[in-house]
């Protein structure tokens, strides 16, 4: 033990006196630190700061390992210093171990300096997992020092060492993500990165700093294990091959030992190249990092969501949440430690919510039948919503497993899409709506589709059992269908009132919000009576009476008129397809779907009954106005997935229809934000611009209260603090 301690303290003393060590292990990383911190505007963003920390710490570890340990040892051999140690009664052990340990001791103050400068100059909070950070840096540093030593052990001269070290150092510096985010790099580089130990170190550090992961999380445990294995092999081989004198030469084959040391990363590299886990992980971490930005949206008009308007205020977001709402622009913006963005002329409002979609249906007709089977189609639809500023949608009737899968994927940081809630299948009568739609499925799929898409309980008991099962499966809401049909559409079996009541009652007991499709005023009455939380559609055949709306108002039942789908059916009946020409819809596409749908539906049917077609839209409009006048709480839904209601900027069109129907703009927008959030039971998180809420909102060019179409002029979309790169959204689901 004595030789080890003596050698370590001697190394440390020498390092302390050596200006080049000071330069490379402290000043050089600090220069990088300040450069990066300035370049990434780290002062106003903990996320960017975490990125800077991870980058400079890796740069330091690489330098310490390759130059501090590797080149230093070769130089000591070349200048006959090691020769002197050769005749002492010690092996290479103390030399190698002391190099590792003293390198660690010398580097830790630099790490602390980063954190201290980060805290006091850039106001970066100390990482939550400080212990994990130190553990991981320690493992990384020791592993890289050991790798430096093995390089020293297999080269014959300083020139050889320099070449070999550059061959390892440069790729690890530039291709590991430490200096350029992996996301930015071409695919082949991403593949190469999987083979570099530095990538694992970098992702580990970043996950700890950005993601708040522990050093012992599964991926970090694997990375740590690979680093420790490499370190153990490097130590063992390094001691075996250690040479004290420059005259002792070693064969070229010895360099293969480096590959042996890197073996854990080679193996892992092949696995990662196949699974692409680490690339996905980096992307996730970058998203997390982007969420940690602190931004002040200054001089902005704020539509709060609950009817309140703040002219010329400011909103501060931090760590993905709204941290402060200012009624006037703050005087001292510098003290907020945030990026300040001047948003004059813009309106900041909560992300829009579509309360009624069928995510499994395209909303049009594909030319190529294979497109119906595209496994990414539903996720792409959610991306289309997000692109359009609709940050949250609720599916009111979809295939259960498919919808749950979509929800799971939508919550993964691998995907950037709108937030998704689903009722799963709908409760209806045997032979009830929408069983007729099953005919659209290929025959072999119909049985599966029926099981997944509908619940057709034959008794109240069965209904309750089915609701309980859905709750267990994890649905967010329960949808019932009350629909007897009509002359023009066709007749359907309507769900037995007793069974329907059981569905609503059981769902409420289970704490699930309920929604009911209604086709007539009678259906609406039953739904109100059964305690449905929302009325979807209202009625297309008759006017809903005063007392029904009064009851809705009294019980806080939401009214979701879904004018969009009625307009679409009305247009369809007349061969009108102009609603597909809206610019924002054209942007989200898919274009082939829009174009083919247009060509299929643009011919007016043979028996054109304009009056009937108009009434299909006019009665729901009347009912909506009546609901508004009765003080019923309104919510917006489009029923997207139905023909000509394509997933995308649905809510914008819905509110435009409302405004055309003389609903005040503020009322329509509140229905699309705060009210909808309440109906989703998510009002503590979304739908309001208020302190503590998710930073999920839109920046619009213009003022939608002046001109409702401003909701289509989206300047920026923020989802839980992440500034969505809208141009990239559709690339996610290309394949």
């Amino acid at each position: 033990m004595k030789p080890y301690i003596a050698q370590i303290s001697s190394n440390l003393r020498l390092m302390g006196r050596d200006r080049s060590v000071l330069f490379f292990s402290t000043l050089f990383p600090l220069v990088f630190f300040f450069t990066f911190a300035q370049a990434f505007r780290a002062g106003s963003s903990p996320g960017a700061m975490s990125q800077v920390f991870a980058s400079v710490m890796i740069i330091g570890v690489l330098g310490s390992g390759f130059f501090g340990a590797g080149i230093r040892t070769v130089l000591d051999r070349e200048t006959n210093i090691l020769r002197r140690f050769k005749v002492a009664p010690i092996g290479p052990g103390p030399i190698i171990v002391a190099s590792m340990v003293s390198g660690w001791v010398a580097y830790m103050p630099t790490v602390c300096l980063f954190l201290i400068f980060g805290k006091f100059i850039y106001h970066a909070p100390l990482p939550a997992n400080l212990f994990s950070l130190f553990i991981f840096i320690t493992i990384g540093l020791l592993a890289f020092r050991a790798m430096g030593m093995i390089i020293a052990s297999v080269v014959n001269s300083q020139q050889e060492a320099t070449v070999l070290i550059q061959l390892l150092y440069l790729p690890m510096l530039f291709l590991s993500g430490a200096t350029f985010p992996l996301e930015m790099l071409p695919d082949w580089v991403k593949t190469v990165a999987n083979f570099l130990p530095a990538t694992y170190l970098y992702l580990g550090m970043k996950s700890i700093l950005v993601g708040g992961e522990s050093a012992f999380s599964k991926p970090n445990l694997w990375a740590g294990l690979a680093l420790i294995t490499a370190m153990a092999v490097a130590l063992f081989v390094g001691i075996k091959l250690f040479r004290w004198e420059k005259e002792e030469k070693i064969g070229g084959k010895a360099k293969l030992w480096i590959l042996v040391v890197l073996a854990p990363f080679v193996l892992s590299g092949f696995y990662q190249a196949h699974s692409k886990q680490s690339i996905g992980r980096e992307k996730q971490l970058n998203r997390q990092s982007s969420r940690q930005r602190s931004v002040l949206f200054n001089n902005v008009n704020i539509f709060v969501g609950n009817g309140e308007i703040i002219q010329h205020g400011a909103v501060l977001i931090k760590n993905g949440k709204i941290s402060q709402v200012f009624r006037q622009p703050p005087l001292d913006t510098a003290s907020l430690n945030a990026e300040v963005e001047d948003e004059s002329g813009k309106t900041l409002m909560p992300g829009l919510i579509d309360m009624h979609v069928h995510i499994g249906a395209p909303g049009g007709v594909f030319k190529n039948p294979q497109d119906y089977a595209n496994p990414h189609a539903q996720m792409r639809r959610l991306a289309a919503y997000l692109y359009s500023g609709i940050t949250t949608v609720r599916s009111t009737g979809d295939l259960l497993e498919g919808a749950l899968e979509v929800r799971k994927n939508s919550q993964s940081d691998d995907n950037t899409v709108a937030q998704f809630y689903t009722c799963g299948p709908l409760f209806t009568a045997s032979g009830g709506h929408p069983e007729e739609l099953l005919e659209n499925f290929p025959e072999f799929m119909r049985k599966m589709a029926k099981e997944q898409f509908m619940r057709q309980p034959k008794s109240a008991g069965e209904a309750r059992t089915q609701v309980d099962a859905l709750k267990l499966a994890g649905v967010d809401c329960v949808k019932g269908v009350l629909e007897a049909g009509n002359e023009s559409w066709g007749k359907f079996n309507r769900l037995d009132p007793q069974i329907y009541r059981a569905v609503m009652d059981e769902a409420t007991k289970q704490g699930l919000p309920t929604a009911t499709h209604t086709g007539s005023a009678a259906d609406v009455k039953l739904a109100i009576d059964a305690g449905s939380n929302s009325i979807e559609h209202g009625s297309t055949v008759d006017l809903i009476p005063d007392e029904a709306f009064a009851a809705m108002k009294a019980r806080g039942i939401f009214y979701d008129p879904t004018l969009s789908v009625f307009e679409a059916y009305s247009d369809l009946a007349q061969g009108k397809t102009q609603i597909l020409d809206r610019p924002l819809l054209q942007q989200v596409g898919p274009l082939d779907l829009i174009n083919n749908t247009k060509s299929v539906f643009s011919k007016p049917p043979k028996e054109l009954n304009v009056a009937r077609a108009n009434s299909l839209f006019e009665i729901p409009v009347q009912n909506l106005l009546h609901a508004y006048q009765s003080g019923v709480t309104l919510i917006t839904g489009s029923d997207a997935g139905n023909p000509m209601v394509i997933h995308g900027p649905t809510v914008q069109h819905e509110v435009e229809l409302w405004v055309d129907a003389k609903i005040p703009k503020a009322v329509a927008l509140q229905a699309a934000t705060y009210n909808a959030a309440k109906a989703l039971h998510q009002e503590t998180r979304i739908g309001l611009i208020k302190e503590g809420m998710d930073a999920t909102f839109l920046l619009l060019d213009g003022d939608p209260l002046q001109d409702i179409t401003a909701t289509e002029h989206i300047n920026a979309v923020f989802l839980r603090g992440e500034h969505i790169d809208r141009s990239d959204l559709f690339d996610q689901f290309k394949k």
Partner: protein
Amino acid sequence: MRGIDLEVKTGEVFGLLGPNGAGKTTTLEILEGIRPRTSGSVSVLGLDPAAQSKEIKDRIGVCLQATNLPDKMKVHEALDLFAAFYSKNADRDQLLKRLQLWDKKDALYKTLSGGQKQRVALALSLVNDPSLLFLDEPTTGLDPQVRLEIHTVIQELKKDKRSILITTHYIEEAERLCDRVAIVDAGKIIELGTPREIQSRVLGLTQVEVTTRLALPLDTLPEKIRDEKHSSSNEGRTLTVQSSTPATLIMELVRWIDQLGFELVDIHMKRPTLEDVFIELTGKRLREG
């Protein structure tokens, strides 16, 4: 190495003398336990260097050719560091004083002169108070002044009761420092003994040379002198005689010249050097150039 047979006694200074590449350093490295041998038996302090290299290293002192220390290491730190590697330590302050490094103990290694650096190397080799000291060409590459300085130090070390094995290709060094010398060439010992023994064994005799103003009449040479190996040169004015009893010979020669009434211009006695021995034995000089 082709086969070296030698024994170093306790308390003696033993020199391995030979040209570059003769195998001196290799011999030393085998003894020091830092180089494996292919055959033969070696015992150092009763231990086998191949099997017990660590024990041997712990007990011997070694001063290798051309070693260095880190530039920024202070002299006393070097001693402290190396002392930590050994189970037994000498008094380091004493050591520094003895090697005239006391004033320099806080100096950085890079600020030392060549002689001081070599004295530090010697000090390091003594840091474990070894009973056996290996000095591999301790003065090679040093200028004559510094070499003398180191010789003084080694002579000082001779006073201790420790065995010292020196390799050198400087004759004066061997003659001056060593109790016994082995002459090594091409991996073999070709002579072994005290410097004096070797000289006399190889060339035997001391030469006495007299020079007079006139040519010496060799026919009048006394019987006793005539029996010795002799030759004349310088047109008969110089006479060289070899003898194992040079003192008697000188008296005889002086008496003869005095009887002749000649004027004695010069007389001197020349003892053969190890250099001569080496040239005699190998036909080559010890140092190139």
